[in-house]
């Protein structure tokens, strides 16, 4: 609960801060907090990834880009009424919905009862103790392939956008 509240506070900070460096750092903090929350929730793999990605890659990327652009955010000229409205509506629907979800942490929620029983079969079928890995790489291996393709896509896309190609370079135009 403590962590979660801190998360909330950090978010407020992100919303309010105008200096983008501060925002970047705050979002890094946010990621670390998120990671610790995830650990509490027994999602160690996710926590590890969130830490490396959120606090690592994302922050590096943002800072790198900030280095190429400017670092202060201008005050928005137009009124923020519509966004506020959209946000509140979304919030209302979500609160309305989640407050009817099965209570936190109980063992007989649908996803545990009706959900797939990886825990029971992982060792027997794949011999892998870390069920997350076995599900990731085998049971739902296709999602992970897709995930890798996403990285591939993003990588090529960024190269395509940022890499300087002196047009008509011999090797490529041929």
């Amino acid at each position, binding site marked *: *609960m403590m962590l*979660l509240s801190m998360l*909330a506070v950090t*978010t*407020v900070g*992100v919303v309010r801060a105008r200096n983008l460096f501060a*925002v970047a750092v705050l979002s890094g903090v*946010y990621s670390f907090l*998120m990671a610790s929350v995830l650990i509490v*929730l*027994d*999602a*160690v*793999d*996710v926590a590890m*990834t*969130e830490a490396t*990605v*959120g606090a690592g890659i*994302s922050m590096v990327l943002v800072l*790198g*880009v*900030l280095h*190429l*652009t400017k670092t202060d*955010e*201008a005050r*928005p000229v137009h009124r*923020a009424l*519509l966004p*506020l409205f959209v*946000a509140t509506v*979304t*919030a209302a629907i979500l609160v309305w919905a*989640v*407050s009817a*979800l*099965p*209570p*936190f*942490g*109980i063992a007989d929620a649908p*996803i545990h009862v009706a*959900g*797939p029983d990886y*825990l029971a079969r992982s*060792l027997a079928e794949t011999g892998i*103790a*870390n*069920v*997350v890995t076995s599900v990731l790489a085998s049971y739902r291996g296709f999602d*992970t392939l*897709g*995930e890798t393709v*996403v990285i591939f896509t*993003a990588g090529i*896309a*960024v190269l395509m*956008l*940022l890499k300087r190609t002196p047009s008509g370079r011999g090797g490529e135009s041929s």
Partner: protein
Amino acid sequence: MKELVGNLAAHFNQWITVFLMVSGLYIVIARGNMIKKLIGLSLFQTSVYLLYISPGKILGGTAPILEDGVSVYANPLPHVLILTAIVVGVATLALGLALVVRINEAYGTIEEDEIFERDTRG
């Protein structure tokens, strides 16, 4: 009122989740600075992680890494999904930032209002 408090206790992390989501969404829509927008976007996506992970937790359980003497584990499936989601998120962020760099070079600014106004001026 009482059941509301009870509800709050039972769903505290979901309520926080909602708060994070919405504030992320708010940043995206309300702010004109393209980098800020992207950060808001990743906030928005990150908050979804909790929505998936929280229900997977079983009180008294441990991480889904099988070992002897432990019987209650958290549900691994949400973890897998979220791992994918994280990757998708960072991929989007990277691409978005690349675009921002190019836009900054083309327009000399990353404030949407200024960009539109420069375009209308041709």
